[in-house]
């Protein structure tokens, strides 16, 4: 079972002169959803991209179960068990639904030779809409179906850590609720470590265990999800609800 803690220590990332992450430290525990909140441009996406190796040349440390990942190329980090579902979802639209899922499965196979938790059939059971469209180009999927596809694909890769960048973006509230419920169930059942980046702070905090609030690349608050949601000052200044 996945039981790896993700720890980020003093992570700093720059785009030219812009410091997008400034000595960010945080911890995400197995079996918990850790929300990362903050306004546009706060550095949330950059944080996930630095963890998964897409932003290179960042300073600081990223530890997965005590193993250093910082500086490794993205494909190695993925193989170490970090599944990053990028902002804008990361569906390869030219491939079919099943081919997208197969890519996750291939990674899962290289990661766990014997014991697999997730299978293609299981994903189709979880998301019947995908099963019906398995041979279609992923291009033909709706926003919600794409979200299902990338979550299913990430699960097939048998990750320890799931990095989700705004999974609610552009989805109807009902679909968002469905997807959040599903993520909660998965975490409870499998002990996944989830880092959930969201604009939609209210819904994110409703399923998260703990949360970090970023502003201008710095951590400005860190508490239990309930405490963050109860902090009127914080909600007003950074969370917009």
């Amino acid at each position, binding site marked *: 079972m996945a039981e790896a803690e993700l720890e980020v220590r003093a992570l700093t990332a720059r785009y030219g002169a812009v410091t997008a992450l400034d000595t960010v430290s945080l911890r995400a525990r197995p079996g918990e959803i850790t929300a990362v909140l903050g306004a546009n441009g706060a550095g949330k996406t950059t944080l996930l991209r630095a963890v*998964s*190796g*897409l932003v290179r040349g960042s300073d600081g440390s990223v530890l997965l179960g005590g193993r250093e990942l910082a500086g490794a*190329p*993205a*494909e190695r980090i*993925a*193989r170490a068990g970090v*599944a*990053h579902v*990028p902002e804008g979802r*990361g*569906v*390869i*639209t*030219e*491939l079919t639904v099943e*081919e997208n899922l*197969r*890519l*996750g499965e*291939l*990674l899962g196979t*290289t*990661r766990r030779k014997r014991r697999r938790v997730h299978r293609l059939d299981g994903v189709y059971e979880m998301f019947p809409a995908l099963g019906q469209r398995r041979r279609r180009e992923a291009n033909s999927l709706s926003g919600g179906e794409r979200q299902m596809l990338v979550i299913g*694909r990430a699960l097939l*890769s048998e990750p320890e850590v799931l990095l989700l960048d705004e999974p609610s973006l552009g989805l109807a509230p009902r679909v968002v609720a469905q997807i959040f419920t599903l993520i909660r169930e998965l975490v409870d059942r499998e002990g996944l470590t989830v880092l959930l980046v969201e604009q939609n702070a209210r819904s994110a905090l409703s399923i998260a265990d703990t949360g970090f609030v970023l502003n201008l690349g710095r951590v400005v608050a860190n508490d239990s999800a309930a405490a963050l949601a109860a902090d009127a000052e914080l909600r007003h200044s950074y969370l917009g609800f």
Partner: protein
Amino acid sequence: MQQFLNVTLGGLAQGAIYAAFALALVLIWRATRIINFAQGAMAMFTTYLALVLIESGQSYWTGFAVALAGGLVLGALVERVVMRPVEGGPELNAVIVTLGLFVALQALAAILFGATFQSFPAPFGLRGFTVGGTTIAFTPFSVFVIGSVVVVMLGLVALFRFTDLGLRMRASAFSQEVARLLGVRVGRMLTLGWAFAAVVGSLAGLLIAGGNLVHPAYMDAVIVYGFVAAVLGGLESPAGAVAGGLIIGLALSYVSGYLGSELVTLAALAILVAVLLVRPHGLFSRVAERRV
């Protein structure tokens, strides 16, 4: 009627070669957004390898196999050593590097193999089949040309459709970033893509050379025709490249057969310009295919 048949058959055989060459260009374009202007020079180089072996007493087939294997190695080397530093940078840099490679390989070939015309053997007869008492412009070698191109294409289709490696290669071509996030070693896939493309290019080089004269610049015209074929097919699609190759082969054969062979290059250019003006995304592109 007789002439039409001859011109058509000749065009198909030529077209198959252009198709292979266009396919090599498309494979690299899809994966790296680079037009490999050195493709022809690379094919010329490996064809000379075959010629050296054949002239030293080896069989045609040994030369053939070594040229294809040489293409594999050369393609991989070129990507790793020459292209890797400019990949992902400004597109013009990559273009200039492939042009530089083109010039360098031609110069190197002239030094190593000589700048003179040398005849290259064909493994099968070059005399046309006889049908109903008349000889047609379709030779046993034409059968080999079309057959080997078809085999290579089926092989590529099988690779991309039915194997895990092919899926990883396609994922890398369509979205490097997502492929990386799924643990695909994208760099390795690009190297393989160049290697496979160079094999297909080398095949085209060998087939053009068969029964003809080779010299360091003998592929230059093929680069143009192969490029036109690839553009005709939309640059993105392997199937389009094949169709484009056949169309160019036929069109040029008709021009040469009915209007005069001196007009062939001009006709290729006219087709290219016409396609770019009327259907810049190729003859077969679905309208609004790439909405972003």
